């Protein structure tokens, strides 16, 4: 069991989410940075659909009530236990009674803490993801609080010293610390209805992630965009990465807890391959868009999935050998 001594800024339970229920008004939710979640699970030998902690900007303090093998991925977060600093992207073995203190992130926005055996709370509608906006999921869909006790799944005892593995992953392919590369944007249904200046600004101007951003959506500060004429729409389906333009001219990139439908004009669609990179932009970070078409976006996603699958296989081999 893991006891939450302090929850950090915003820590939640996340897995791959609950797809397939949009027709009932239920969104997918799940980890914002899915590759980082999967690699954390692989590092501790969990299946990819296990549940982990998603940590936002400032981490929690946790007491381990049994021996545990853990891994941290995503944004690099200050971490220590029993007086030792803990590295990311590698399996770590901690003894029962250890207090794990996670601090701030110098860059990036979200870290993942996986524990061998997984966080073993009951699934809700097929997933252990907490949809904080809808209030759906384990613990009533609310973020973690001090005093929460999180059960762990069965884990085979590790032999020998509680220590780190002698190997770790290179995080660079999976974490864009500089946050400098543009995110790729496909054309949106109503992109052609932007006025000329806005059409140019969409790909030229730097935006900034606004403070009022969260798992529901990222609001973009900077250049205000405008349509040639106001557009009245009836509510229609949206997906994660849909860029909506409300009447105030401040674009919103819908994110993992977005409502399943929306009525604002859609001026673009973030390529799915870049959703994890959006997850790591924090309020104040710059953001630029670069155009991409559907074929290229699908190829990029496929290439990323193949790299991820190869990496999971390599990690499993490495674990078996050590």
């Amino acid at each position: 069991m893991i006891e939450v001594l302090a929850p950090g800024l915003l820590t939640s339970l996340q897995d791959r989410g609950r797809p397939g229920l949009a027709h009932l008004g239920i969104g997918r939710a799940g980890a914002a940075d899915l590759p980082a979640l999967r690699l954390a699970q692989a590092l501790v030998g969990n299946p990819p659909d296990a549940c982990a902690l998603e940590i936002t900007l400032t981490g929690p303090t946790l007491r381990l009530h049994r021996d545990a093998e853990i891994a941290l991925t995503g944004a690099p977060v200050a971490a220590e236990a029993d007086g030792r600093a803990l590295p990311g992207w590698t399996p770590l073995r901690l003894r029962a009674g250890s207090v794990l203190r996670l601090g701030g992130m110098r860059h990036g926005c979200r870290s993942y803490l996986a524990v061998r055996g997984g966080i073993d709370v009951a699934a809700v509608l097929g997933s252990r993801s907490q949809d904080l906006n809808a209030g759906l999921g384990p613990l009533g869909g609310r973020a973690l609080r001090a005093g929460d006790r999180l059960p762990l799944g069965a884990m085979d005892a590790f032999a020998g010293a509680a220590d780190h593995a002698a190997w770790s992953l290179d995080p660079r392919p999976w974490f864009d610390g500089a946050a400098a590369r543009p995110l790729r944007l496909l054309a949106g249904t109503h992109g052609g209805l932007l006025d000329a200046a806005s059409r140019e600004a969409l790909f030229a101007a730097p935006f900034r992630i606004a403070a009022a951003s969260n798992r529901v959506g990222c609001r973009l500060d900077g250049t205000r965009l405008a349509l040639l004429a106001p557009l009245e729409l009836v509510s229609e389906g949206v997906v994660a990465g849909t860029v909506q333009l409300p009447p105030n001219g401040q674009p919103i990139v819908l994110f993992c807890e977005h409502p399943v439908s929306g009525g604002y004009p859609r001026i673009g669609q973030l390529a799915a391959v870049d959703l994890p990179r959006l997850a790591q932009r924090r309020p104040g970070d710059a953001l630029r868009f670069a155009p991409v078409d559907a074929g290229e976006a699908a190829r990029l996603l496929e290439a990323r999935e193949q790299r991820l699958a190869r990496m999971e296989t390599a990690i499993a081999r490495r674990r078996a050998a050590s």
Partner: protein
Amino acid sequence: MTGADCAIELLGESALLLRFGNAIDRALNDRVHAAAVALRAAALPGVEDIAPAYASLLLRFDPRSWPDIEAFARAVRAALAQPRAVRSDDQPVGTAVAELPVCYGGEHGPDLAEVAALTRLTQDQVIARHVAGDYRVAMLGFAPGFAYLLGLDAALAVPRLTSPRLRVPAGSVAIGGAQTGVYPSVLPGGWRLIGRTPLRLFDAARPAPARLTPGLRVRFRAIDTATFTALSEHDA
């Protein structure tokens, strides 16, 4: 049938939007549900979501099953054009009916008097007209289990509240503009509350969590407060 009588818009590399129009209209919405039924039956590989809206249908799919989105769009059009044999388990759109008991007015419908004043009807006339409606679940959205209903008597249309409530009780039956619906859980909301159903419309612990599903017909039945209490499925 529906044929290829819709526009197909790309929503990135992982989703299509089938657009039948851009209005809140029962005939348009019928075509959306017919297309949803046809596409569920077609069971195209890699399709993860088939989600109806008022005048459009969202299809979310795994692009690894369909790296060429144009090929997926062609498969969708072919599925919509396919004449289907009627199977014994087919539910023609709009035959299944959910009946919801509603306690109108009083503590459960705090805006009923105002709705009556705005519509220049008596409270009893508002209730009678609301109960007489033959409604259809156009779509779900806003929150898990929130059903937007088509079929509100035009005389009952009233503007939304200028200042939305922060906490609308679960089960509240409400009118917002020309739409009516039922709040499935405690939510913020700007629609005017005319009554409340004692039934739980959304329960994540049930295998079928939403009582109202896309395309379902809905009727309301007026009940008194004693019956509301007796039937109540809400947490105390």
